[in-house]
């Protein structure tokens, strides 16, 4: 396989695509948002349970999308669970930099942890939206924006 392709479709990404984590409806959620990528028809629902200390206690997702968007959503849920809202927002900010090819420091990279596997996405401009759809939707859910969000 071509090197660039291999970096896009890393084993962890393929694994999360095949068996996504937290792939369910969260009945007790108190935050919710729906995200669309109208160009490709990707659709994601994000459910979040935030406690009184602004901590993300539970987070889950449902929907359909490509391997990049699905695995990104899956990994996101595992990363932000147990984090404060502000922390999750910070990670999103860095993740966005990572996938759009903005240079980030080593410290920032460290904060991204497992999410670093998405750095191959920056070589595929058409796929950046796939990687960031879940994050945009989580952001909307945390802000409890009523309307559905799109990546356009």
């Amino acid at each position, binding site marked *: *396989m*071509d090197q*660039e*392709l291999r970096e*896009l*479709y890393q084993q962890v990404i*393929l694994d999360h*695509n095949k068996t996504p984590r937290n792939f369910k409806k969260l009945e007790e959620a108190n935050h919710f948002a729906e995200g669309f990528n109208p*160009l*490709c*028809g*990707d*659709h994601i629902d994000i459910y979040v349970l935030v406690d009184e200390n602004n901590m993300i206690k539970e987070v889950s997702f449902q929907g*359909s*999308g*490509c*391997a*990049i968007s*699905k695995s990104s959503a899956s990994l996101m849920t595992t990363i932000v669970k147990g984090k404060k809202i502000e922390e999750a927002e910070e990670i999103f900010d860095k993740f966005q930099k990572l996938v759009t090819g903005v240079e980030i420091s080593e410290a920032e990279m460290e904060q991204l942890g497992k999410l670093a596997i998405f750095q191959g996405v920056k070589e*595929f401009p058409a*796929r950046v939206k*796939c990687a960031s759809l879940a994050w945009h939707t989580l952001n909307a859910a945390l802000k409890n924006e009523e309307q559905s969000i799109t990546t356009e």
Partner: protein
Amino acid sequence: MRRATESKDIMETTLNIKKIREDFPILQTLVHNKPLVYFDNAATTHKPKAVIDKVAEYYLETNSNIHRGVHLLSQKATSEYEAAREKVLKFINAKKLSEIIFTKGTTDSINLVASSFGRAFIKEGDEILISYMEHHSNIVPWQILCETTGAKLKVIPINDDGELIMEEYEKLLSPRTKLVSIVHISNSLGTINPVKKIAEIAHEKDIPVLIDGAQGIQHSKVDVQDLDCDFYVFSGHKLYGPTGVGVLYGKQRLLEQMPPYQGGGDMISKVTFEKTKYNTLPYKFEAGTPNIVGVIGLGTAIDYMNGLDTENLFNYEHELSEYAHEKFRNSFPGLTIIGNAKEKTGIISFILEGIHPHDIGTILDFEGIAIRTGHHCTQPVMDRFGVPATARLSLGIYNTREEIDYAVNSIKKVYEVFG
């Protein structure tokens, strides 16, 4: 024996296709270090060198604004522009030049009709009839018209093979139906609709018919008098011509009753602040400086098509389509083709079980293969078949059996990654 004769015929045709391929310089491009295999012809086709040269020649030697110019270059530009109108007329066998209007493309042509025909003929309670397999460009303009007038949009259902249900069509025609607007060939299913029959049925009730020929004009011989449609619309860029230019064919009787779409230069015969007298057809609908080079380039694309044996070419495309369908159907158990109409053109929309079309598209891209993935601007079709998206190959005159074999082989790589 029959097989041997068939393959000989195909070999002979392939020789011609080799020659055609040489006419399209872009086919020499390498994509990710592999020869380009272009299967995205329903989105746009490539341009033969003749068209590219014509566009360059126009800017190098002719460039001027058309109509009303007394200088030589303007006269030359005007005559080339109007010559293109004659080429379109002959290509679709229209009766009069006044019935050929140049637009920006199919979408623009439909919007022109929705706006202008709408203002002339559509009022509250009227109905416009489209089908389930329309491109968004043949849905949204009518929705906008319905919102402003209070008219209703009615939709002809399709069956599981992606064919129009003709009995339902007849049932949906009512005394309130003011226009039927139907796609000639579906861009996401490949279905060839019986547009002549559709027009005939509507005309029994005096209802005009618009045919969206965006995918029809390049894959079949279009004769608007034989089809007897009231409007036929298409784009230049899917007919091996430049982008940003298209055609609205309309019967003069209707076009005359329709008010202008846009106001401006060229569409008037006399302007005062009190009242403006509009120009005659077709200029009434061509406000402002048009896409002159686009129109002239489209004329050259039509010359190019005429220079080929189109009947033989359409047969070749049909054979190639059959071959591709057979190959795709029989190669992978997890592959499903969406759209299996009996009358079908070279559009293969497919899904692979458990693999999203986008991932297919990215992996094929690395093999040099250009396909389209997504909803193809036909979301209702995707909903109808319960899929969010498909991967789509769409064939053009320069595609070959070898390229199809290569694509089938490359799908194996998709399975290697996701298997």
